[in-house]
């Protein structure tokens, strides 16, 4: 109970009225602030959290203010007066305030009276204040507060009731850490997941469970469709690294497309600013990448020395899960790389295989002096991550050092020369001791056989793909035959023993001479190669001036120096010039290495350039008469005996004979061409046209004659089979007639008659009334008809030839004279060969003799105005001349092949229609079969080409 005249009484009345309403209003305000803060936080923007906190604080602040004000009123009477009676009864309130002022002064010792008196005055003033008025006003204020609080409470309720999930979302977002909300929420329903593999895989679409684990190829397109539970959410499909937004599917749902690139866990989520709120479920994806094609190279990895294996067979296979696009042979040597397309499969080929052969003479290999890595690579058709190459294991081909093969060949021939020298030495020793016994003669024969065996082996051998040149081989065979003849004569005794010794001497000197020439030739060839290597060293050293290139440059230079070093060592063994240049290479390499060791790249480069310049001119270091005998020998003009005569002219004579033979061959071919042209031009256009028409008619008749004959047969020996062959030959005849090839036409006609006669005979023997008998009869009839046509063709041919020869008689007369002159040249060549130190082998001499005979006959025919007969003899002579030619230089052949950059592909002929190359090959063969071929060679050509096609 408060006493009358106290301020507490008034306060109590005020609070009794306003307290409950005020508390409710403040609570409502605070609740509204919290809800506002949550909604603000739900935006997820970076500043939303501090803003939400500010709102909450603002909402709570009135409660604190109210509490503080209440305490103030309790402590301070003036505050209490101001809060109560000053508003209800201002006069009383002001009086109370004045009384309070007096009390304060009295208490401070002022002369306003005693404190008790002043206190009594205050009590009376306060006592005048109406408690009822205060309570009345309090009730009014409380009403207003209650109204405000209720409005706020209602608003809060409305916000929450409208979409309570927003409050949860807001709270979830506000509680997020590292951009991800802690509480997973469900955003969608009726979720569907469809996986569509990349089109190049050619696989079906697949429905997936939204919560399962799926194994999918890289590139698979996943389509997630769903119905959102709540609108207005920014839904995304997240794989943890990135996200794809859902878009409206136009059917009340949303859809998102995702492409698999790696393993992932796919989750539907809602994005609130920077915060992602995922769903509790997810789809695990195990991504399967497209592996590169698998390429296998039979026998690889392996290292092969080309000296021992100059022909490397490569059998490869390539496989890809989907499709192969390209297969290539890859050759790498040092910094160089060359890719050669082996195949370009089409139509989704998944497997491919093939084979090829690489030769030591291949352009790339021959030009590489460092080990070569050979592999096969295949390219797939991966459209997602891009095509990938798969590579096989590699063969490492160790090429022969420069000059290594040449040195092997040189040594083999030197060995043969030494064997012959020993034979000669033994014979000379025996001659000095007097005529040998039977036993020593037997031993002599055996020794000759051994020596010639060594020579033959040296000539025949392959030195890592390098062979003894044809001219030298021919010379060797010629010497062998001469020695054998001399030995045969020596067996008969008499003075032939001396001839045997002389033949032995000649053989030694001939082989020695060609050895010297070959050594010099090989030295020059190798020196030029080494010159390129020295230039490469210079370039490499120069490139090393740049710091970034230093390491690569050192590798290149080291490789070049190694090649130079080995090459130089090989040169040393290749005779006089080889020794000279080999020493220079060794010296050059030392110079370069010395400068490099001293870090002097400039001089190292210059030294390499100096060596390259020297090797580019692979001549003897000293090229004139210095060093000869005599008192000169200073500065210039050294005296001496001058050039020594050569001990043997075998090398130059072999060269001369070869050239003469080649020239004869060329001249004769030209001559034959001239005769053919003269005969051809002897027929006028009008005559030719008339003849063409006539032959066309004849061709029709030929076709008609065999029209009833069977076209197919499985038994070549049957009447049907023979009739079929007869028909084919007759049709060939018709074809030749249409082309105007009368000679070939009659040949085919005769062939057809022969086949048809056989068919008729077989048919006669067949059972009466049988099909065979019937065919035999038809064949006989066709034969009878065809016989007349063939005879007609023969007559026409003879007539045509006679006419042509007659018309070209002047030209033929001239040609006859020239042909006889060529025959004489052939005979002279034989005589020269017999007289030379390098006689041609017997077989070549024989062919040359036959060729000269054929030329004589051709001359006779041409002189007798029998142009075509002459032409035929000329053809025979030309063939014999070709056969008499020295075998081609195998090493040169190899080089030419290499230069063209071609590879032998005879390891495996591609099956029909496998690819374009195979088609082209077949076309060439077929066309070749259809071309005009001399009659006597026709069967051989056909057998050969058919064999190829098989």
């Amino acid at each position, binding site marked *: 109970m408060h006493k009358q005249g106290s301020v507490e009484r008034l306060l109590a009345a005020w609070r009794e009225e306003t307290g409950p309403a005020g508390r409710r209003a403040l609570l409502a305000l605070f609740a509204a602030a919290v809800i506002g803060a949550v909604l603000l936080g739900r935006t997820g923007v970076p500043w939303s959290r501090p803003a939400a906190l500010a709102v909450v604080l603002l909402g709570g602040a009135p409660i604190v203010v109210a509490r503080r004000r209440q305490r103030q009123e309790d402590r301070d009477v003036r505050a209490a007066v101001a809060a109560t009676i000053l508003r209800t009864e201002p006069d009383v309130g002001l009086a109370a305030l004045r009384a309070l002022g007096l009390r304060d002064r009295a208490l401070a010792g002022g002369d306003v009276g005693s404190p008790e008196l002043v206190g009594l005055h205050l009590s009376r003033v306060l006592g005048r204040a109406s408690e009822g008025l205060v309570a009345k006003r309090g009730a009014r204020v409380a009403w207003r507060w209650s109204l405000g609080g209720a409005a706020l409470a209602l608003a809060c309720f409305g916000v929450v009731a409208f979409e309570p999930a927003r409050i949860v979302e807001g709270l979830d977002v506000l509680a997020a850490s590292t951009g991800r909300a802690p509480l997973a929420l469900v955003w969608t329903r009726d979720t569907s997941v469809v996986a569509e593999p990349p089109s190049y895989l050619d696989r079906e679409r697949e429905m997936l469970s939204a919560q399962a684990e799926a194994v999918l190829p890289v590139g698979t397109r996943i389509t997630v469709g769903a119905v959102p539970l709540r609108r207005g959410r920014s839904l995304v499909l997240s794989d943890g690294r990135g996200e794809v937004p859902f878009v409206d599917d136009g059917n009340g749902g949303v859809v998102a497309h995702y492409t698999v690139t790696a393993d992932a866990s796919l989750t539907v989520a809602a994005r609130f600013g920077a915060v992602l709120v995922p769903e509790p479920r997810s789809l695990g994806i195990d991504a399967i990448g497209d592996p590169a094609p698998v390429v296998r190279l039979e026998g690889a990895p392996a290292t092969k020395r080309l000296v021992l294996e100059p022909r490397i067979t490569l059998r490869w296979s390539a496989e890809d899960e989907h499709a192969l696009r390209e297969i290539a042979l890859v050759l790498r040597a040092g910094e160089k790389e060359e890719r050669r397309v082996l195949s370009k499969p089409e139509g989704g080929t998944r497997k491919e295989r093939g084979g090829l052969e690489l030769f030591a003479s291949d352009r790339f290999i021959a030009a590489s002096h460092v080990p070569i890595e050979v592999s096969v690579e295949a390219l797939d058709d991966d459209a997602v991550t891009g095509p990938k190459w798969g590579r096989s294991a590699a063969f490492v081909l160790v090429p022969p050092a420069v000059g290594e093969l040449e040195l092997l060949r040189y040594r083999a021939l030197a060995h043969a020369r030494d064997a012959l020298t020993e034979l000669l*030495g033994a014979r000379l020793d025996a001659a000095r001791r007097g005529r040998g016994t039977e036993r020593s003669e037997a031993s002599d024969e055996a020794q000759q056989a051994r020596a010639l065996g060594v020579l033959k082996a040296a000539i025949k051998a392959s030195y890592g793909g390098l062979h003894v040149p044809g001219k030298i081989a021919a010379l060797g065979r010629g010497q062998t035959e001469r020695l054998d003849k001399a030995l045969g004569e020596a067996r008969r005794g008499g003075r032939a023993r001396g001839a045997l010794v002389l033949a032995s001497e000649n053989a030694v000197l001939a082989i020695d001479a060609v050895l010297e020439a070959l050594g010099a030739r090989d030295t020059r060839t190798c020196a030029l190669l080494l010159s390129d290597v020295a230039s490469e060293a210079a370039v490499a050293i120069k490139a090393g001036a740049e710091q970034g290139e230093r390491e690569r440059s050192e590798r290149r230079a080291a490789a070049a120096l190694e090649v130079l070093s080995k090459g130089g060592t090989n040169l040393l063994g290749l005779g006089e010039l080889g020794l000279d240049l080999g020493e220079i290479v060794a010296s050059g390499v030392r110079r370069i290495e010395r400068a490099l060791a001293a870090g002097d790249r400039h001089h190292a480069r210059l030294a390499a350039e100096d060596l390259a310049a020297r090797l580019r001119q692979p*001549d003897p270091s000293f090229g004139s008469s210095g060093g000869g005998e005599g008192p000169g020998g*200073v500065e210039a003009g050294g005296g001496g005996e001058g050039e020594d005569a050569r001990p043997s002219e075998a090398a130059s004579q072999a060269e001369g004979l070869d050239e003469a033979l080649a020239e004869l061959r060329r001249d004769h071919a030209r001559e034959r061409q001239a005769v053919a042209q003269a005969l051809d031009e002897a027929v006028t256009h009008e005559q030719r046209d008339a003849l063409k028409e006539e032959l066309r008619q004849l061709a029709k008749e030929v076709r008609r004659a065999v029209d009833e004959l069977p076209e197919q047969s499985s038994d070549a020996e049957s009447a049907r089979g023979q009739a079929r062959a007869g028909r084919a030959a007759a049709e060939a005849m018709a074809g030749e007639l249409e082309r105007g090839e009368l000679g070939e036409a009659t040949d085919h006609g005769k062939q057809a008659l022969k086949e048809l006669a056989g068919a008729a005979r077989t048919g006669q023997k067949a059972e009466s009334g049988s099909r065979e008998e019937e065919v035999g009869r038809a064949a006989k009839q066709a034969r009878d008809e065809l016989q007349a046509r063939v005879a007609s063709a023969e007559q026409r041919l003879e007539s045509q030839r006679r006419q042509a020869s007659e018309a070209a008689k002047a030209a033929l007369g001239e040609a006859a004279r020239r042909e006889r002159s060529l025959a004489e040249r052939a005979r002279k060549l034989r005589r020269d060969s017999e007289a030379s130190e390098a006689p041609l082998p017997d077989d070549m001499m024989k062919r040359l003799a036959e060729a000269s005979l054929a030329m004589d006959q051709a001359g006779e025919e041409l002189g007798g105005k029998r142009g075509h007969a002459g032409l035929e003899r000329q053809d025979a002579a030309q063939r014999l001349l070709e056969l008499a030619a020295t075998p081609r230089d195998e090493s040169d052949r190899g080089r030419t092949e290499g230069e063209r950059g071609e590879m032998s592909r005879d390891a495996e002929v591609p099956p029909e229609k496998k690819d374009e190359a195979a088609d082209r090959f077949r076309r060439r063969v077929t066309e070749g079969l259809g071309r005009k071929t001399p009659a006597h060679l026709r069967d051989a050509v056909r057998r050969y080409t058919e064999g190829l096609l098989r």
Partner: protein
Amino acid sequence: MRRRLRLRVWAAWLALLAFGLVAVDSRAVLGVSALRARVKIVELELALASELLAAAGDDAEVVVERARLALYRGECDEAVRLLERHDVSERDDAAELVGVAKGCARVTAATVVLRDESRGVAVRFHDDADTPLFPYLAEAAATVRDALERDLGTRLPSPVWIELVRDQLSLAAVSGLPESAAKTTGTVAVAKWGRVLMISPRAAKSGYGWLDTLAHEMTHLVLSQATRDRAPLWLQEGVAKREEVRWRKATVFDGVVSHDDVAQDGFRRGLGVPLTGIGPSIAMLPSAEQAMVVFAEVASFIGYFTEHAGEGVMPKLLTALRDASPLAAPEAAILEVTGTGLGEWEKRWRAWLAGTARAPVEERIVATPVRKQIARGKRLGELLMARGFYDAAEAKLREAHALLPRDATLRCRYAAALVGEGETLAAEGLVRAPGDIRWPTAQWWSLHDDLLGKSALADARWHAIANDPLDAAVACEERPRGELPVEPKLRALCEAARRFAPE
């Protein structure tokens, strides 16, 4: 006011004129310096030339002379660097030098240089395998220098630079001599750029007289030095030919084939040329044979001249040539020194040559079939010996030797076969008498020394080395493989000779 202005204009004109004069004068001074430096370079006073050029500025003309000096010093990289300066490279005289400088830089890069400071000799070896030749070169060069000072009155400065290159291509590159000309005439050495440039004896199949060649080329250097490069070609070559054997002890073979005889024979065969018509270089004559005749011709003339003009004429002639006006003909110096002109001297010499009525030079043309027979016998002998058939080889070589008995090479092969047979005495007889051969080869000297021992001609081994030092038999004193000479420098030479020699 107007007067002050005129004064100012005059002052400006005067200043400009003064500047122009100074500039022109300094250019002239610099030009003279370059010219003086060039003279000093030719006189091989390289230090002085360097000083002159150092103070001569940086004009293109001066730079060219610096490049020339660098070439004389063998500093080819420096020469290239100097000549590649833009304004320098456009000059004609620079274009002439730059090719040589580049060739020289290439050939001399990363080579080995050995010096003998006490003798004042430096040798650059294109092929480091030739370094065992250095002691012989240094000793010979020092001796030749003394001999030339004695005969010509001028001493070569130290060091005497010798470039021993590996081949004719390199010789052409360092000298500037066209390679084709070097090949045509068989040039083995050139004196150029103050240095002796010579081919290694390794380059020639049977070596050559490399030490006499050194003397010959050093004579050229002295003549250029002493006459400021004004000695005419006939004088250069004649004196050099004379001096090439005067530096060492004479042998019984010196003079066996007389220059006079060869010259006379050359005139008879139409190969001789007038002294003043030799052309720019003997090395550029059309053939080796004509070069040989012309060498004999000039040597014969110089022999005649020194004999008839009195002792000491040569130093006087060289001095007269040096001191003569650059525009004066060299012949004037002869007239000044001897009182007789060159034409008259040549006339007298030709008359003397014709009047001496010596027998013609030994007939050297051997019929082709015989030459072929000789070549067969020689080669068969070599091949048979290589396979150990000494008896058979001896028979073949005996036949060949009988066809050309005075040929030292055949004689040596024959002797070697006899040695192989164990017929040492017979072999000794073959290489005993110098009169048996027309001219000795290194192999003859070597076998002579080996087989005759103490009764051999003096310095036989040295003469063998002086002709073909890198022949394994010569350098190794005919010892079998595995055995080495005792003397260190010969031992080194033997090892170098055997390094690449075929077994």
